[in-house]
């Protein structure tokens, strides 16, 4: 049986088209992908991303444990800060991409991809030691996550919260009320390339917060637009750009991996990749021919398949086919042209500067 988030009934009321995503019945669209995409770029859109998982780490050794598990440096966080990071295998492959939030020096929350909750939780448990100086808890089923994104998002949230949202810096969070619901975590983070917030609340609080935000004028936005928005912003998606077999360096995530950190799982293997040099890497490309690249399509150099598209779509903002994909390093420079094998037709694409879309 697929799971439902506590906002499922709200989605049905709004006439959402529901699809199975990572074992959850989720809204893929309400009014239409294009309309929702443009609402986020020009105004504000509201997403239910409660399917994502949350793990809590508490205790005096929680920080040390997290620093062993993750590739970024958790030691750089102060209270109320969030950090993008990775869980890596000892061979350097990526278990998941995550966010780590520090509430206090002894209280952290890790946010993981819905499709990986079970895998990640097993991973965390497997690496936990017998130390009594930290505790871990999978709180995924107790927490809802809403994302309000777009140029009007901050203004809207400010009217609904007792916290100074407009003074919140990027990747910082405050704990306070939203629409009269207390103890929400309001983070200036997102996955769309726009300004905005993500709100963590208890399941029972979610419907009221959802309704209040929609009342302020945000458009309900589904997973379809979430994908086109993140792709234009060149944000990686697990299962596409990154997976158990890709290493962070070829995925363009070297900035996340702190090789000067004492030790973490995967460090040795990633160090070795760095010393030996990359064989392939992710590039962003746009189509010069009229065509839309899709995940799995081969990237072709002189009739030989040399790479693969990891994500592709029609870009609503640019009105052209865009994609991300792995290519041999000699094809990675901006301006390089190659062909994409689209249903046995070779269509021309060109490597372009990333991201495809950057807000002004």
């Amino acid at each position: 049986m697929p799971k439902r988030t506590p906002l499922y009934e709200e989605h049905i009321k709004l006439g959402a088209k529901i699809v199975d995503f990572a074992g959850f019945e989720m809204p893929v669209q309400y009014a239409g992908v294009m309309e929702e995409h443009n609402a986020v770029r020009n105004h504000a859109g509201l997403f239910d991303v409660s399917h994502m998982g949350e793990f809590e780490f508490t205790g005096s050794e929680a920080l040390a444990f997290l620093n062993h598990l993750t590739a970024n440096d958790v030691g750089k966080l102060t209270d109320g800060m969030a950090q993008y990071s990775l869980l890596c295998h000892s061979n350097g492959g990526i278990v998941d991409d995550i966010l780590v939030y520090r509430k206090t020096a002894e209280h952290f929350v890790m946010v993981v991809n819905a499709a990986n909750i079970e895998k990640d939780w097993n991973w965390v448990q497997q690496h936990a030691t017998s130390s009594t100086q930290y505790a871990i808890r999978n709180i995924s089923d107790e927490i809802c996550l809403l994302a309000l994104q777009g140029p009007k998002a901050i203004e809207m949230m400010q009217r609904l919260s007792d916290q100074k949202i407009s003074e919140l810096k990027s990747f910082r969070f405050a704990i306070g009320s939203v629409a009269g619901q207390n103890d929400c975590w309001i983070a200036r983070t997102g996955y769309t390339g726009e300004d905005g917030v993500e709100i963590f609340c208890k399941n029972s609080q979610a419907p009221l917060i959802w309704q209040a935000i929609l009342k302020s004028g945000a458009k309900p936005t589904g997973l379809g637009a979430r994908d086109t928005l993140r792709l234009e912003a060149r944000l990686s998606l697990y299962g596409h750009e990154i997976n158990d077999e890709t290493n962070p360096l070829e995925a363009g995530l070297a900035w996340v991996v702190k090789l000067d950190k004492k030790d973490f799982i995967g460090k040795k293997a990633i160090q070795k990749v760095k010393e030996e040099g990359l064989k392939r890497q992710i590039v962003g490309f746009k189509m010069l021919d009229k065509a839309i690249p899709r995940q799995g399509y081969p990237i072709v150099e002189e009739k030989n398949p040399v790479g693969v598209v990891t994500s592709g779509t029609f870009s609503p903002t640019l009105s052209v086919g865009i994609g991300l994909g792995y290519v041999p390093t000699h094809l990675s420079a901006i301006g390089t042209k190659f062909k994409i094998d689209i249903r046995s037709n070779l269509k021309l694409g060109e490597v372009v500067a990333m991201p495809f879309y950057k807000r002004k």
Partner: protein
Amino acid sequence: MEFPEDLKYTKEHEWVKVNGEIATIGITDYAQEQLGDIVYLELPAEGEAVEQGEPFGVVESVKAVSDLYAALSGTVLEINDPLVENPETLNEDCYEEGWLIKIKIGDPKELKNLMDCKSYQAHIKEETA
């Protein structure tokens, strides 16, 4: 959703309008709604042969690629060129402005494989049940 009574329909959600030995083919209201925002269309060239039940082109929405299946066998007489330039028209008017191709019907006997508007609506109900 709208399903004109003077059209014939296929299980793959195409419609056919027969006029003598010429058939006009398009996709139904249900199909365009299922696809969502249509952004790309690939149609055969004039003179190409199409075969009933076989793919003759491709329609893409923002998020998905779908084959177009020929409702009847025959030879392509005309394709809707303006539609290839503005495929979003399919979301607005799939029965008039949004026709895809016109073919010379190869075998009139194939017409009996098509559904009328009532059986097509029953088919949709079955499919979505």
